[in-house]
């Protein structure tokens, strides 16, 4: 069991990382990583949705008729996304406005349906929940790494707090979509071309 848990986390975080190995969830990776605060809320939302939709789907896996399997998964995922949206609108209004349509678009994030289909539908609840957490964490650290660099270079701040000195000239490109493309490509290159190659896993 301990070995299985270790494998789930190793896959979700590195070997089968949803962002830089499977290239899933790219839309939100590009869209919300211009500030760390927005990114943190987005990844927390996704982590909640992927973990609890995996758990629910796994609980119901023997009851879900196979011919409406994806319909039921879609319903469960959408419901958890709406929960996140309502909670943000009620308790984190500013962030909810800044994230705009991207919270609702968690429904279309391929990571969630991917984990439901690839794991939760055929595995017991606890490992499915852990698989969701591992995938969510794998998505989280990639997005947060990109967001830290983009906000620091683009605004000279981290979490809205000024880090760079007064003389710092903001790299406007970093907070625009093109900056996200460059940073994501750089991240994938570092992970696959340097880290994984050194470990012989590329």
């Amino acid at each position: 069991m301990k070995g299985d848990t270790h494998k789930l986390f190793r896959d979700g975080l590195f070997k089968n990382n949803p962002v830089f190995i499977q290239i899933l969830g790219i839309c939100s990776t590009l869209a919300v990583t211009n500030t760390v605060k927005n990114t943190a809320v987005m990844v927390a939302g996704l982590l909640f949705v992927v973990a609890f939709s995996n758990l629910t789907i796994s609980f119901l896996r023997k009851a879900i008729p196979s011919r409406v399997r994806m319909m039921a998964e879609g319903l469960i995922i959408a419901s958890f996304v709406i929960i996140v949206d309502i909670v943000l609108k009620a308790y984190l209004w500013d962030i909810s406005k800044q994230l705009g349509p991207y919270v609702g678009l968690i429904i279309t994030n391929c990571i969630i349906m991917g984990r439901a289909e690839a794991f939760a539908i055929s595995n017991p609840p606890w490992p499915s929940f852990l698989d969701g957490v591992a995938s969510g964490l794998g998505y989280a650290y990639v997005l947060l790494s990109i967001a830290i660099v983009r906000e620091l270079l683009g605004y000279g701040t981290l979490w809205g707090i000024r880090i760079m000195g007064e003389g710092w000239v903001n790299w406007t490109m970093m907070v625009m979509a093109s900056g996200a493309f460059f940073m994501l490509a750089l991240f994938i290159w570092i992970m696959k071309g340097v880290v994984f190659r050194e470990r012989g896993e590329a």
Partner: protein
Amino acid sequence: MPERKTVWLKSLYTIVFMTGLTALFITVLSALFLKTRPLIEINEAYDVKLAVLRAAGISPESTEASDVISLYDLLVEEKEFPAEKWNYYQVGAEEGLHAFVFPFRGAGLWGEIEGVLGYDASLEHITGMDILKQNETPGLGGRIGEDWFKDQFIGKQGPFTELTQNGGEEKLLYSFQAITGATSTSAAFQSIINELIEKHVKALRRHLEEER
């Protein structure tokens, strides 16, 4: 025959299962929505109140919800234009009229753009503008929500005949800077603002002159 019965039972089970699952999640979501609705309504009202104050050229010292709402309640009066069904806000009536704020709504490139536009007490110059809702392309048309775009209207008169900032002082009063790469959104915004000025601002100006 038994095979047909099995198929029929399977179909029935599928329908019952999906109906039950849908009902379960609708119940949970409805309960959560009803529980949080008062908070969401306060947040939405706060947005409108802060936008009205900003459009009137008033920057609250604190943007805490309770401070903004009490300042709004102190300064702003919601009015209905006589004989017509549109509203505007009168700001600072008690302590010498400060500004009039007009809500606007119209079609952008992808969806509705909603906001408020403020004019000084003489209805001659714009005091501010704020966007409440828009679904324009992030990074392009979506930049209508940025301060540089909104602040450029302060001191201008409108209606806006051109999307440029080149020209003499007179021309500047009737033009604004479009967003690069978002010509359609800029043009849509120009037409929304112009319609507001032609219909509501001018109507109120005439009405106030008649009253005098």
